[in-house]
């Protein structure tokens, strides 16, 4: 008779990386929340007047922060799972490269879509 | 007691065992095949083979050349009919492995690549980076999953072979995870349990290589052949004995003494680092003796330098060398030379078989390092052993399958089974003041000291005396763990019993052979003596201990001559 091991419900606290993983997954909830609120409000108010209100501003900030955390942690994971283990400085370099590419991409999106 | 029935029972899940299982399963789907192994097959020691597998793969190479290299390497003790069969079959097996998906390293055009190896006159060693054995073992194992007629018994420890006068009938084994003994009834049994490097204290071999198959076969009267020939690999890491592949030299690595000289120029200028293993190991020992070695906390060593190959080639062709050097010697071979020293590696001898793997007992077969066909004679060439596992694994599998047609499933003697159960139970509860580890260590040290690279008659006699005392201690070993379930202390006791048998046979055979040939160097008889000793040594179980006999060597085309390079 062997002993069945049960996985602890707090397994994700064992390791700082999995805590980060869960935080990242959690940011998805806030991003989704932002999108849903925006869509619901936009459906009822085509002039987007609500976007000047303090409520929507708060929601937007939360959404933005969540999206930034999500993106950055994702980039960090990406440089960690390369087929060959990269030295720390190269990981950092790749990470910065991704961030720069992201910022440039966002800038052009902003220019062409909104401004 | 549970009894399992099978047509073919294979003991051992390494390259030879798996190849035998596949040969039988593929060609005879109606046969019931049981694969009994004391570890999961992928843990078998084939996994640690690194350098490659030899076979005639190129136009510049020839059948005759590979035969001659093998025979010259064996110091003319190999049976030449077996060598011819082996050399003919080896390329076929390499291609078969490729068809099964083994990721051999490739040339730019997509053909299988070859590298140089010690004692081979041309490049003929096929490889998969420097994890050849690992890739082969996993390919073979994964292939067995395709055949439903192969039933695996993982982590079952074989304790005894059963026979009648008519032939082999089965074996008893301990189910480690179930904690029970069971019996296997089989028409044929193939032993593929590997070598016995663990009888030495300093060895490349893993923990599982305790000569179980050799001892089991000896116990039921099968002779062991050429047991005095133990190969010492020139390049093992100090302390752990972990293997650094010959492929490192095949790719162009240098052996250096403490003056930074490639000292092989003084011993074997025509071949330098690519000589056969026995000669290189002896050369390293004499460098060390002459004070030209390095001294370290774990004994003297020389340097293996592959820095000039550059990081790209090292990472591509020798990644494991880099990995283990970093992990186990704290040295990165891209920037520093690797400390190496000769280490016990391989048993040329083993259970005596013909070239179909048949032993003297009908229905009992052996293949791989356990067996001695013999193609390796007094010294094996690097990269012949993986090919040997495949060629003779397949041969044994096919022959065993054929044999199944001729016999009925035998009956087991219930009394014998009961006796074995009692015997095991008695060992489990045996009382005394000795511990397994102490006795094992005594055995290993005794072998290392007296039956190493250099041997003398006096030393061997002393070793046999010591051995007798050690064997007595065995009867006084008591265990801490008396449980039946996964009792690894108990299995190490059973392994120790097997090691005692194998070690004694090595000592007996080494004492008998009063000459120096291949890996067997008797400083009191420093030359080869074909007149008296161009013979195989056979060790058989007699009423009062081991009996030593001689049998002639089969010579076909290559007359023995001086072994010159």
């Amino acid at each position: 008779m062997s002993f069945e091991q049960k996985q602890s419900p707090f397994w994700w606290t064992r390791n700082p990386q999995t805590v980060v993983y869960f935080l990242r997954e959690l940011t998805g909830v806030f991003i989704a929340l932002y999108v849903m609120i925006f869509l619901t409000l936009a459906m009822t108010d085509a002039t987007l007047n609500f976007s000047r209100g303090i409520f929507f501003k708060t929601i937007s900030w939360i959404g933005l922060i969540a999206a930034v955390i999500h993106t950055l942690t994702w980039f960090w994971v990406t440089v960690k799972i390369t087929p060959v283990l990269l030295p720390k400085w190269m990981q950092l370099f790749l990470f910065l490269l991704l961030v720069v590419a992201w910022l440039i991409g966002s800038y052009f999106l902003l220019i062409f879509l909104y401004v | 007691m549970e009894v399992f029935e099978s047509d073919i029972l294979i003991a051992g899940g390494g390259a030879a065992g798996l190849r035998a299982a596949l040969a039988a399963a593929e060609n005879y789907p109606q046969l019931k095949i049981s694969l009994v192994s004391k570890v999961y097959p992928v843990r078998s020691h084939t996994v640690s083979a690194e350098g490659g597998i030899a076979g005639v793969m190129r136009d510049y190479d020839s059948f005759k050349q590979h035969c001659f290299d093998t025979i010259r390497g064996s110091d003319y003790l190999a049976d030449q009919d077996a060598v011819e069969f082996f050399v003919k079959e080896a390329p076929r097996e390499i291609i078969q492995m490729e068809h099964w998906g083994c990721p051999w390293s490739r040339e730019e055009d997509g053909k299988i690549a070859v590298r140089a190896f010690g004692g081979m006159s041309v490049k003929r060693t096929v490889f998969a980076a420097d994890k050849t054995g690992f890739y082969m073992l996993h390919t073979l194992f994964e292939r067995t999953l395709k055949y439903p007629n192969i039933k695996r018994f993982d982590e079952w420890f074989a304790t005894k072979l059963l026979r009648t006068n008519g032939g082999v009938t089965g074996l008893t084994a301990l189910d480690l995870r179930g904690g029970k003994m069971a019996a296997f009834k089989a028409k044929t049994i193939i032993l593929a349990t590997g070598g016995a490097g663990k009888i030495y204290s300093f060895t490349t071999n893993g923990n599982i290589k305790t000569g179980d198959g050799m001892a089991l076969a000896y116990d039921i009267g099968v002779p062991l052949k050429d047991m005095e020939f133990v190969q010492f690999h020139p390049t093992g890491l100090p302390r752990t004995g972990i293997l650094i592949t010959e492929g490192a030299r095949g790719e162009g690595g240098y052996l250096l003494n403490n003056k930074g000289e490639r000292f092989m120029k003084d011993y074997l200028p025509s071949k330098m680092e690519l000589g056969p293993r026995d000669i290189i190991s002896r050369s390293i020992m004499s460098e060390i003796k002459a004070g030209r070695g390095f001294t370290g906390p774990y004994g003297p060593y020389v340097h293996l330098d592959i820095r000039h190959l550059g990081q790209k080639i090292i990472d591509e062709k020798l990644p494991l060398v880099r990995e283990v050097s970093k992990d186990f010697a704290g040295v990165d071979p891209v920037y520093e030379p690797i400390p190496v020293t000769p280490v016990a590696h391989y048993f040329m001898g083993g259970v005596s078989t013909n070239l179909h793997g048949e032993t003297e007992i009908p229905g009992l077969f052996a293949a791989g390092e356990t067996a001695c066909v013999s193609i390796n004679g007094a010294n094996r060439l690097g990269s012949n052993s993986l090919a040997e596992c495949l060629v003779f694994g397949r041969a044994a599998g096919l022959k065993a399958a054929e044999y199944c047609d001729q016999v009925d499933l035998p009956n087991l003697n219930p009394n014998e089974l009961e006796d074995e159960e009692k015997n095991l139970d008695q060992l489990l509860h045996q009382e005394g003041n000795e511990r397994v580890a102490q006795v094992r260590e005594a055995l290993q040290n005794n072998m290392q000291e007296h039956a190493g690279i250099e041997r003398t008659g006096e030393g061997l006699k002393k070793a046999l005396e010591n051995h007798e005392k050690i064997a007595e201690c065995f009867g006084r070993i008591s265990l801490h763990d008396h449980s039946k379930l996964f009792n690894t202390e108990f299995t190490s006791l059973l392994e120790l019993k097997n090691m005692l048998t194998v070690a004694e046979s090595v000592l007996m055979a080494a004492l008998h052979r009063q000459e120096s040939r291949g890996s067997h160097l008797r400083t009191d008889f420093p030359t080869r003596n074909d007149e008296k000793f161009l013979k195989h040594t056979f060790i058989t179980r007699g009423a009062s201990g081991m009996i030593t006999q001689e049998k002639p060597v089969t010579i076909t085309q290559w007359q023995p001559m001086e072994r010159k390079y």
Partner: protein
Amino acid sequence: MATDGTQVLTVQRYHQEKSEPFFQSYELRFHEDLTVLDALQQIKDEQDGSLTFRWSCRMGICGSCSAVVNGKPILMCQTYLKNIPSPVRVTPLRNFPIIKDLVVDIDDAVNKMSDVLPYTDHAEEKPLEDGEYQQTPKQRQKIDQTSQCIKCMLCYSACPVYGLDKNFIGPAAGALAYRYISDNRDESKAKRMDALIGEKGVWKCSFVGECSAVCPKRVDPALALQRLKLMGAGRLAQKVLSNLTEKSHEL
């Protein structure tokens, strides 16, 4: 801890006759070159013969000596005591039933590897006399990483999804499937893909990435699983389409 001396090692024990797992501490002779595996052997040889663990090659290639040390799944033969902060605590692999002390039953994972049909099949087998199938170094490169798996099962121990749901095919089996699917010589990809996109298949992976983090051979099963998801989606779409066209023919 650079000097020799003694050190305490705590091991989780389980002997079925003593019911629940418990911890036991041993004092051992420490030196610089001692691995966790060496330490356990020292204990077994000198103090407690009943301490049970698997090991063989002691060079990180046979995959026997997996365990969890201070919370991290590792191969004990490669892990030096000097590199681990004290106190050192050795526990068996997670997510598998414990048989005895550090020995766990990995049959479930082995069977899952069997489920992905890990062998090359050719539509028509070429006779051996005709030689090898061609594979350029570049094509071989594609299977290089995933074929490094030594089946040590550290990834199953690290995978929280497998921890919750034993139906999940798991990291190493996924990597193994990917190894054969990405082999240019294999011609049975569809069959294998179908084994992976079923209920037990790759979809359950939520890309925690722990499997790749603990892999001692850097196989990166997480990456293999993500790639399989992509291929699996393609395969599903293909199946739906072929079903649709069949239906429309019937109409």
